[in-house]
């Protein structure tokens, strides 16, 4: 029996105590017509050794290719201590810390996490996390509608240089509440959003402007100018940022003269493995003035009846289990285990280590850019500054080139053809501190071979 400890004798005694003849009798309130007759589609049970062999075989099928894809999920070195500690049963198998006295460990971790994220983003307060970066953006848009009392229009401006999946998640999530998303074009020459492009919205009722830094192309947006344009018009600024980059880049709290209002992003780069897309965590920080409009859990420090410091979930009156239909969101969860990992990661890195990761990632990306643009038929697309990701264009369709490189064990980047056909044969590539000069050379050489063979064919 799977993880069921009962002996036959115990079952007999328990049934006798209840006063029924069989376990089946306990289901006598279920109409007989509804009872399951077979589960033919479920395979036979496997024991631990058998499932171990199956999973190992499946994992080996997928292999461990050399990966230069970024596009919202980034490979960084994860110190051994991060998951060794995070997977301790006391973190791994604990429930949500509603019983504060029995959850001080989880609560203190979240309090430390809130402190780190608020400082990293240059804001005053962080929540305990949301599902992922994209859903955090969706929640930020809904929050902006609640927080911007000067705007009635429920209109959010979203540059096309924001991650295309994020834009889709935002509209799938907030669209049912009549929030309107309007696309803002990017400069084809620079790969970023220009304040001059926003001029056509002057004088209109706009609720919020989304700014992603670095943007989906890896390019650095002129965040100061965009922020100042929005602030002068009572438009809230929603920043979408990469947390590793913030060791190097100006935090959203200091953008322009007044800073951003809501900051969200994908927390995955902070110690969370790529793992096919999840579980990750979305972070959200804001100004104290907006804290009651924030969705998700918050941990506060307080005292117990004997005056000792302790931690507890607070401002729960915003949440669904208290407020039901009038809650700020239906969200209950935070991605607690991932937040635990990220807090350990940031503690091991510290301000110096995190800055070194950011600098090394930028350095490897610069090295990769140099190596790839030396390959005949490859050119850099945008001349603008970038962090650890950039766009190159090939002189032929990207998809077949990517497939040939994948066959050689190299995942060479993200094909932009589907989302940005106007860029031609464009490819988004990324390098982090995990890439060595030898690996970059291997990629460039393989790309050269494949392009040469394609030209010859």
């Amino acid at each position, binding site marked *: 029996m799977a993880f069921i400890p009962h002996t036959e004798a115990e079952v007999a005694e328990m049934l006798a105590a209840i006063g029924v003849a069989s376990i089946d009798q306990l289901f006598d309130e279920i109409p007989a017509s509804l009872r399951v007759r077979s589960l033919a589609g*479920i395979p036979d049970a496997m024991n631990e050794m058998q499932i171990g062999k199956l999973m190992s075989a499946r994992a080996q099928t997928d292999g461990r290719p050399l990966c230069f894809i970024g596009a919202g999920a980034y490979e960084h070195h994860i110190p051994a201590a991060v998951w060794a500690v995070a997977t301790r049963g006391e973190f791994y198998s604990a429930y949500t810390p509603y019983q504060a006295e029995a959850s001080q*460990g989880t609560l203190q971790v979240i309090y430390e996490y809130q402190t780190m994220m608020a400082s990293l983003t240059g804001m005053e307060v962080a929540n305990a996390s949301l599902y992922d970066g*994209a859903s955090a953006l969706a929640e930020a848009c809904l929050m902006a509608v609640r927080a911007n009392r000067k705007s009635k229009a429920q209109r959010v401006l979203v540059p096309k240089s924001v991650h295309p999946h994020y834009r889709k998640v935002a509209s799938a999530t907030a669209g049912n509440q009549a929030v309107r998303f309007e696309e803002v074009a990017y400069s084809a020459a620079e790969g970023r959003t220009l304040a001059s492009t926003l001029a056509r919205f002057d004088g209109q009722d706009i609720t919020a402007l989304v700014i992603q830094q670095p943007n989906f192309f890896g390019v650095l947006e002129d965040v100061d100018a965009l922020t100042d344009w929005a602030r002068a018009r009572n438009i809230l600024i929603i920043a979408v940022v990469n947390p590793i980059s913030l060791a*190097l880049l100006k935090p959203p709290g200091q953008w322009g003269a007044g800073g951003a209002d809501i900051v969200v992003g994908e927390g995955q780069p902070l110690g969370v493995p790529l793992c096919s897309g999840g579980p990750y965590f979305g972070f959200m920080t804001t100004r104290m003035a907006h804290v009651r409009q924030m969705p998700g859990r918050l941990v506060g420090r307080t005292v117990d009846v004997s005056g000792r410091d302790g931690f507890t979930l607070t401002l729960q009156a915003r949440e669904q289990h208290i407020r039901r239909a009038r809650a700020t969101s239906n969200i209950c969860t935070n991605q607690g285990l991932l937040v635990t990992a990220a807090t350990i990661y940031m503690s091991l890195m510290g301000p110096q280590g995190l800055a070194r990761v950011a600098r090394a990632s930028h350095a490897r990306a610069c090295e990769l850019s140099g190596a790839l643009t030396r390959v005949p038929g490859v050119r850099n697309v945008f001349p603008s500054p970038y962090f650890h990701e950039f766009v190159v264009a090939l002189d032929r369709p990207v998809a077949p080139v990517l497939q040939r490189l994948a066959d050689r064990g190299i995942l060479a980047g993200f094909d932009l053809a589907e989302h940005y056909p106007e860029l031609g044969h464009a490819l988004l590539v990324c390098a982090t501190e995990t890439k060595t000069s030898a690996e970059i050379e291997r990629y460039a050489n393989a790309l050269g071979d494949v392009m040469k063979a394609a030209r010859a064919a």
Partner: protein
Amino acid sequence: MSALREKVIFEYSRPGRGSRDQWPEEIEHASRIPGNFKRQAPPLLPEVGELEAVRHFTRLSQMNFSIDTHFYPLGSCTMKYNPKACNQYAMLPEFLGRHPLAPASHGQGFLACMFELQEMLKEVTGMQGVSLSPMAGAHGEFAGVAMIRAYHRARADLARTEIIVPEAAHGTNPATAMMCGCSVREIRVGADGDIDVAALQAAVGPHTAGIMLTNPSTLGIFERRIEDVARIVHAAGGLLYYDGANLNAILGKVRPGDMGFDAIHMNLHKTFSTPHGGGGPGAGAVGVSSRLLPFLPIPIVGRDGERYRWLEEADMPQSIGRLSAFMGNAGVLLRAYIYMRMLGRTGMSEVGDYATLNANYLLTRLKQAGFEAAYPQRRASHEFIITLKREARELDVNAMDFAKRLLDHGFHAPTTYFPLIVPECLLIEPTETESREVLDAFADAMIRIEREAREEPEYLKGAPHNLPVRRLDDVRAAKQLDLTWKPKEGV
């Protein structure tokens, strides 16, 4: 619980200290980032050595209750054992290292697991299609109600914007309906705990988008007239949403699809034993009847011959769209897959069997000890409700006092004050993975606390006494918000 107090990590910080072996090498290069983009002051992160960090977080872990260390009879939350194999085999390096946008050619092993997980979930719920992308129960609820709305819109039936929920529903149900732009109508529950069918009949109409139900209900009993409910809602043109929070009770016994539901979410972190992680990650896969198939959230794993691939917008043009940046909580889904394969066909229905046996046994023991069941004439499902209204009246102690004192006895508290319609309630769910001795020990602790309520009520009201902190001042926490550590207080 060994640790009683642990400093905030910033209090260990010393300028210049660091876990240098974890940092990358400095690479000589000319930065191409102009000065006006750069950060001026470093962020407030601790500067500590690896051993200090490991000790700090290990000590913090020791200040938690968890399934690995404590019995957790938390009603509606299904805190069953999380098998270690599920974690180990989901964390194989190839799975951990796989990029979400890696081509399907480098993901056939992973995709095979996901495809088979979809198929097994369809089979065990009786639904026609499954999407794995929602990242929590509430996220799955959102997907379900969004699909119901999309269905009515596709039929140009635009007046259907009202969602019916029983008054005992989880708070997420009405909150989700509002997030989907619907209004909420609550209906009464009868004295026997079943939905008042006459009230339902009176509530439905051309404005009804659907009904959200949990079955067994949040009262821990099976909704016996579910076929009538389905008939009434469908006849009125609405659809039925199944909140899968209590699926563990009926696993292998009865299927939501056979009961007439059109959309369901499954809390994989409950029924399929993926870890709760101190508040997440969960996974809230959704299943649908044939009516809602075209609207499932993307991406979904499809199969062409022997090859697996993602189904995206082009394959599913009527989809409600994308709910996560990639494909949801893949690592959680892998754990659920491993668990389901280990259970197999027989194990699946044993879960329902033993979860129900344990709940009815513990209910029997507590009733014999004089505790009052909220629905004494009904069979418990996988959970049940004890009401302490008599204790509150006669002894001036409440459900919270019992809950806090249970912590001192080494048991996590049951769910308290939910559902809202039962006064002074404890919602108790033992799950199938607990042994009879543990259930007996819990019942004995309840009996001792009852005696203490008569003999030493003030001590009981001061509980807990044996934990790192005693009852916390929640009012102060909300009024004098202290949400981040400030350097001036420390070092």
